[in-house]
């Protein structure tokens, strides 16, 4: 976002053609933030404790993935609390979290950090806030559909769906491993399902009427 250039500067710039500097504002003003975002996330992630984060950075230090993240877990918490909603929901961080819970068990404030990440993932998926064909949300959705319909997951079929929906070329790269697994009897294409899948679907559909998450 650009700041308005004062008239004096504009006049100076007109006299001597280059160099005209554009000032880029990197930080949002408070009026542009969604100030209640933090509280809503805290409520969804089971604990107002999110708001009492002391920014010690223990989560970022214990996270094995923090150096691949655009914002470390500590920053995500700070930004969530201050209302940087778009930045948080657009970040790669929430997708990189592998749910290993190291941060959660070490947090001196007992913040449910992994549940915060899940809440943010759900919100980002519901609003389409992720790069198209990004494999992690696609994997989550394919898994969800398969288990909803069959009651069980078939690993091989899930991966084939994932590759077809993201990058089919990856399948060629993985075919070799697949062949080795198959030779060792560790790959089965048989569709797994349960007998009570009709009742299971009734249960899952009942949730729709019971508790549907409002958009954050």
């Amino acid at each position, binding site marked *: 976002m650009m700041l308005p250039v004062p008239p004096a500067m504009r006049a100076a710039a007109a006299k001597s053609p280059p160099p005209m500097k554009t000032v880029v504002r990197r930080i949002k003003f408070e009026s542009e933030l969604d100030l209640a975002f933090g509280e809503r996330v805290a409520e969804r992630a089971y604990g107002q404790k999110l708001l009492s984060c002391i920014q010690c950075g223990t989560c970022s230090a214990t996270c*094995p*993935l923090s150096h*691949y993240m655009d914002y470390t877990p500590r920053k995500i918490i700070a930004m969530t609390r201050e209302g940087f909603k778009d930045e948080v929901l657009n970040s790669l961080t929430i*997708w*990189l979290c*592998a*749910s*290993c*819970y*190291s941060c*959660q*068990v*070490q947090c001196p404030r007992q913040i449910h950090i*992994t549940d915060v990440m*899940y*809440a943010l*993932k*759900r919100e980002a*998926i519901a609003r389409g806030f992720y790069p198209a064909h990004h*494999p*992690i*949300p696609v*994997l*989550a*959705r394919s*898994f*969800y559909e398969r*288990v909803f319909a069959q*009651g*069980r*997951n*078939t*690993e*091989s079929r899930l*991966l084939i769906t*994932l590759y077809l929906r993201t990058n089919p070329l990856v399948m060629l790269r993985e075919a070799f*491993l697949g062949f*080795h*697994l198959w030779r*060792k*009897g*560790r*790959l*089965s294409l048989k569709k*797994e399902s*349960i*007998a*009570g*899948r009709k*009742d*299971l679907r*009734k*249960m*899952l*559909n*009942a*949730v729709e009427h*019971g*508790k549907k*998450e409002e958009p954050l």
Partner: protein
Amino acid sequence: MTYLYFPGCSLRSTGRAYEESLLAVCRKLEIPLHELDDWNCCGATAYVSIDETRAFTLAARNLAIADHLPQPDGSDPQILAPCNACYMVLAKTHHFMESNAEVRAHVSTALHAGGMTYTGQTRVRHPLDVFVNDFGIDRIAKKVVHPLKGFRVACYYGCQVVRPFSEFDHPVYPMTMDRLVTALGAESVDWPMKTRCCGGSLTGTIQEAGFRLNRALLKEATKRKANIILTCCPLCQHNLECYQQRINRRYGETINLPVAYFTQFMGLALGIPAKELAIQRLFKPPLSPAPAGKQEIHAHA
């Protein structure tokens, strides 16, 4: 006490060696198992990324099935979940159902729609916990017929077996498996990566990040002179074993470590034939590091 065995989806495909060896060891130790009737997928970490209440409902269906299977001795039913993710998700669901009235109300209503009721009696257990704490390490030690001398084991627990809802060991530096392998005659290596995440499904989605996590684990185990890594989770085993060659090629490493399930290792010490333990399903069967040299482990089994 009969344990209600919950295989989960992985033990029927990539983790088949885990299932076969677990069942063989339970037969040997005479631990009765009964497969949970018409169990469904636990939901893993993916389901909760889409819909949380549905994820809880999915896992609670399994708990509700177990709730209505009373034990002959009158004790509470216990689910045996060998996969770390299944174990954590089922334990987490139990925890939330017991501690959060709102979750319980929504999930109970959903279960009713399918004709099921949740009572909350069922406990969720991991085989590592059951073997060491229920059966007892001394009793296992007495049954060892082939002490596994010469093995330097890096016990890799993975993340979700000790975090955050399990109570049987320390969440960062557990010792249960280390004590077990020591009782089997092997040596456990002291290493700091026991519970550091292997990346889970990241090796299939963001491979660069997933491979680097596994590389760190494999390098550290090699540096500490381990000659085998043991795991208690099908996904950890898959990641550490199947991507080793690709990690070597990509990062110019020379890692060459067998990665087996702790149940396979137990079975070998208990004198179960290697075939029953599905040793042949591993890409790299553990070699006996005994003076005999390149002799394969199933030679003495």
